């Protein structure tokens, strides 16, 4: 059996925190732009689409890092149900990080919206044009985003619980700073 590291690989931590900031920003930008008719909508939409696609690239990279570098084990003292809940919620977060940008792209493809990111750069549709599927995916984009926000809230609360109540090194294993040798967090 491989020895498991005490903390996440630096790449994993870098990706986790940069993506955490961007994803939370995307959620706020998304619900903000979808609920207004003000010109702010256009500004936010111009941010939302390229940023969402960049996040698709980042999550693929992140999955590769995760498959190459095993994550640190959770503390042995953690009850089994919490271990399972942690695993399941991380799986869900990965699933949603892939699903949201893919559904975003697919809904625009189905709705025959050109996805022009920059002059001369128009991405091809990834699914055929289909109005009913456009409507379905547009609603799925909202539902999945709300699910993602709910899961992130629980994830945040669980992480803080590890940091402030259990103080069992889980937060430190993902902390963006370098841990001093021997420090358990």
């Amino acid at each position, binding site marked *: 059996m491989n020895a498991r590291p005490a903390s996440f690989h630096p790449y994993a931590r870098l990706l986790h925190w940069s993506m955490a900031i961007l994803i939370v920003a995307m*959620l*706020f930008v998304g*619900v*903000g732009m*979808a*609920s*207004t*008719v*003000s*010109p*702010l*909508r*256009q500004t936010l939409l111009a941010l939302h689409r390229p940023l969402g696609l960049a996040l698709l690239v980042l999550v693929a990279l992140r999955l590769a890092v995760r498959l190459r570098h095993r994550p640190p084990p959770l*503390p042995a003292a953690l009850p089994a149900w919490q271990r399972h809940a942690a695993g399941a919620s991380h799986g869900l977060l990965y699933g949603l990080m892939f699903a949201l940008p893919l559904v975003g792209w697919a809904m625009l493809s189905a*709705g*025959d*919206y*050109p996805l*022009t990111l920059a*002059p*001369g750069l*128009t991405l*091809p549709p990834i699914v055929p*044009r*289909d*109005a*009913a599927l*456009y*409507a*379905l995916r*547009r*609603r799925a984009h909202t539902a999945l985003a709300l699910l993602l*926000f709910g899961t992130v*809230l629980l994830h*945040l*609360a669980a992480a*803080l*619980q590890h940091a*402030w*109540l259990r*103080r*069992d*090194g889980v937060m430190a294993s993902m902390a963006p700073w370098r841990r001093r040798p021997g420090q*358990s967090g």
Partner: protein
Amino acid sequence: MPTPEPLSAGQRTLRLTAIALIAGALALAFAASAGWLTPARLTPGRIVDALQGHDGLHPGFRRAHAKGVCVIGEFAGNGAGAALSKAALFAAGARVPVVGRFSTGGGIPDAPDGRVVFHSMALSFTLPDGSQWRTGMNHVPIFPVATPQDFLAFQLATRPAPATGKPDPARVAAYLAAHPETRAFMAWLREHPLPSSFANGTYYSVNAFRFIDAAGTARTVRWRMQPEAPFAELDKATLAQRDADFLFADLATRLRAGPLRWQLIVTLAGPGDAGNDATRPWPADRRELTLGTLTLERATLEDDGPCRDLTFDPLILPAGIAASDDPLLAARSAAYARSFTRRAGEPAPRSALARDPSFRETVR
């Protein structure tokens, strides 16, 4: 790993409270961004609700300009626009495919054509790099309202009362008293003739946009499609006696006989011309340029045509054309998306034109 000092009951409560407060604050901020705490926010949903409240809910159809027909053709740039906009379709010799839709205003898909309403042309140009230019234009060069807030107020004030089926005159009067720009629009409609055909109508962008040239210089413009067919007037006195689909049938018949052409003309804003007020015409002496020719070759029913399952969002623009600061534009983009999502999610019944056997003959 060393076991940390146990927490006192007080410390535990404090820390748990802190976690709950942090998560709660984030949730509250999210709700605020989404407008859930401010029901007064003007959302695209409220605008589309108002359109449905005005003309009734007709599942599967556009919530405005519900009655229409698809057209197919191409646009050829003559090179004159290249100095104003770097959009590829304005280059000399450029030819791009066009899908379009002619429609009459209002949200009732079965409404007869003989009404004093907008006659409209919507177009989607596909440029060589895959980007698109979509535009929805009306035969009236000005709009009744300047802001999305007034659009909503106007829809609500002129909504038919359930008891009479007619707008409440007192509400309409109160609205009009406060809105000289809407009165000016209504006067324009009264004083100007309706074109006798879709084919001889001029269609105006109404909103201002910006053309951006290769050097990055932006100019505020409006555009129009000017027909080659000579203008003829519709007799407003006999409108109500006309066949329900006469405008669309006339268009399809003309297209069967041969292509129809329009010139794309841009008007450059002069000093002091407002780019953010669609209710105000610009003076007639402004510099104008003809940028190319639109040729429409055939019409098809929207039921199986290429124009139904997309939306002519006026902010789908190629490089070289950009939004102005007209507040209607973002509202249009948002409301068209909402209308599109709603209708696309509903089963689409056959259109009025598809159910009209004599019309079907003309598009065969």
